[in-house]
């Protein structure tokens, strides 16, 4: 009985710590974004509520915040969708067709996924400069696809190998071709798996920083993490209110996605890691 009580108190304490540890910075971000005076914590000042920061970042064109957001969403969606499609084709080949050397291939992809970004970005910059693509969507989308593919592949291979092989056999007997099996049977059945892979791929692309920092120059292609990191405001003093409201707006979609699809994201993450 005594042990049971100790345990409950311990769990409670850790939970409280965990909750405040995880949420405090986020709450702080939201409070600052809503305050007229970000310095309200300094001596004898009180918090004054305002929505002006949000109006600023959403309406002042010269801050380019909406451009960054638009770029981020476009680049992440396209890269995630393409990488999931490409990875799904590959996962089909690995789990269903007699692909020789698939073990080596998976191993290779795993090792590739651990390459540091910095060892790619210099050459990618030269390549994109040569092609004249710096500061365009393709300069980000193409490397992003390559960058997200290993993760997508690992998740989907683990997902596909759990779908019964009899489904393929049945479809073959029912007269399907390879492509028909893929599009009429396997993809529809694997839709939840494809979707959670897409979510993860999207979040990865949305959060990417170094490529975007190096391969974009201004609001034409710059993504939101880079935009916020380099956000300096118009007049000397760092505009924390604006930055935090921009950060809130930028993280809101990801946080909502995370809350709504928590189970799928966790599933995808653990498939990609533990199963591998």
């Amino acid at each position, binding site marked *: 009985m005594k042990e049971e009580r100790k345990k409950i108190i311990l769990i409670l304490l850790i939970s409280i710590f965990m909750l405040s540890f995880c949420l405090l910075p986020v709450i702080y971000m939201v409070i600052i974004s809503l305050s007229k005076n970000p310095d309200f914590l300094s001596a004898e000042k009180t918090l004054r509520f305002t929505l002006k920061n949000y109006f600023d970042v959403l309406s002042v064109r010269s801050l380019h915040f909406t451009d960054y957001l638009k770029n981020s969403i476009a680049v992440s969606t396209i890269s995630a969708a393409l990488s999931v499609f490409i990875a799904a084709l590959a996962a089909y080949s690995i789990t269903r067709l007699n692909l020789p050397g698939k073990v080596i291939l998976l191993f290779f992809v795993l090792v590739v996924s651990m390459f540091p970004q910095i060892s790619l970005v210099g050459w990618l910059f030269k390549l994109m400069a040569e092609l004249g693509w710096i500061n365009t969507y393709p300069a980000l989308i193409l490397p992003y696809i390559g960058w997200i593919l290993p993760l997508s592949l690992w998740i989907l291979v683990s997902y596909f190998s759990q779908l019964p092989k*009899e489904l393929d*056999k*049945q*479809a073959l*007997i029912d*007269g*399907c071709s390879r492509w028909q099996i893929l599009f*009429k049977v396997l993809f529809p*059945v694997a839709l939840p798996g494809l979707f959670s892979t897409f979510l993860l791929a999207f979040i990865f692309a949305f959060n990417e920083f170094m490529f975007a920092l190096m391969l974009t120059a201004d609001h034409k292609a710059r993504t939101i993490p880079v935009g916020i990191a380099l956000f300096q405001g118009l007049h000397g003093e760092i505009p924390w209110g604006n930055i935090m409201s921009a950060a809130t707006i930028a993280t809101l979609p990801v946080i909502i996605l995370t809350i709504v699809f928590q189970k799928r994201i966790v599933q995808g993450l653990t498939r990609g890691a533990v199963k591998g």
Partner: protein
Amino acid sequence: MKLKLGNLTKKFLSIRGEVVAVNNINLEIEDKEFFVLLGPSGCGKSTLLNLIAGLEKPTSGEIWFAEKLIVSMEKKIFFTPKERNVAMVFQSYALYPHLSVFENIAFPLRIMKTKENMVKEAVKKVTSTLEIFDLLSVKPAELSGGEKQRVAIARAIVRQPEIFLLDEPLSNLDAQLRLSTRAELKNLQRHLGVTTVYVTHDQVEAMALGDRIAVLKDGKVVQVGTPAELYERPANTFVAAFIGSPPMNFIEGSLFEEKGIFYIIIDNLRIKMPDSKVWNLKRLKSKSCIFGIHPEDIYIRREKTVQNFKTRIISVEPLGRDMILHTSFGEHKILILTKETEFKEGDTVNIEFNWQKTHIFEKSENGERIN
């Protein structure tokens, strides 16, 4: 349609080296026949089914559908499943989880680009045959095991296949449902008149369903015959042990002939055969052999005679109508099926074999039948 397999062999390469899953199999399956492939797991029966379906390619050999050569590795002919018009029901039923029952059944027709009204017509017909008309809009996940099985069968027969392949379709059902479905399946097959190949490891199922049964072991056909033939004249100890419930008794002993009279010797027991022509012995290589006898072919006698001998009852299993007696005779264990029920543990009984129904096998690895 008649189905013929000629010298069919399938080898796999695995980590442990080459595995011969199907070893030079020759079979002729008659038109409209219900043919069962029976064997323990790993005997190659499912691989054989996959070869007939076209899901796998043989290493060598031929497959004929009626007069048409479908597969010949020598002549480099291979028809894909799409080109064969075979239907298959898997053990797991393999229903498409994303499609409704209607769409599952309609799937093969849709792939063939059948006209919508004909699809509806065909689905309606099979679903009323199988009494699953009210399930059409349901997704497979909501179906019970029995319903799933019906849907899988409906999908298989909707396109009127020339050959119907079933891979252990009853093993996921509970015992009671299995019994009733078995009877329905046989009726359906008769009604449709489709050549059917049925794979199972359950001898009771095989006996109940098959017009003929092929018993497989290690990729080879051990014996082909009607259920009665397999039961009454098993070709070797493997088939004999596999078929019949409770299983056949095997007793090691020896046999010898003296002036035209046969004697059976089991341990220090010596029994003179009443009639030397009981067995039509092919050959008698060695004197030692294995006697096989079904538990119901052993009689219990009140009187001790020269034809019977004493055994001790170790345990009794009442089955309701009958009773199984586990008895021991020296080192030998003998099962007896009897209608009399007054026996109890520790009793001794006099038993007599029905010599006409005693099977004599060689005492060798294969245990070939010698009578």
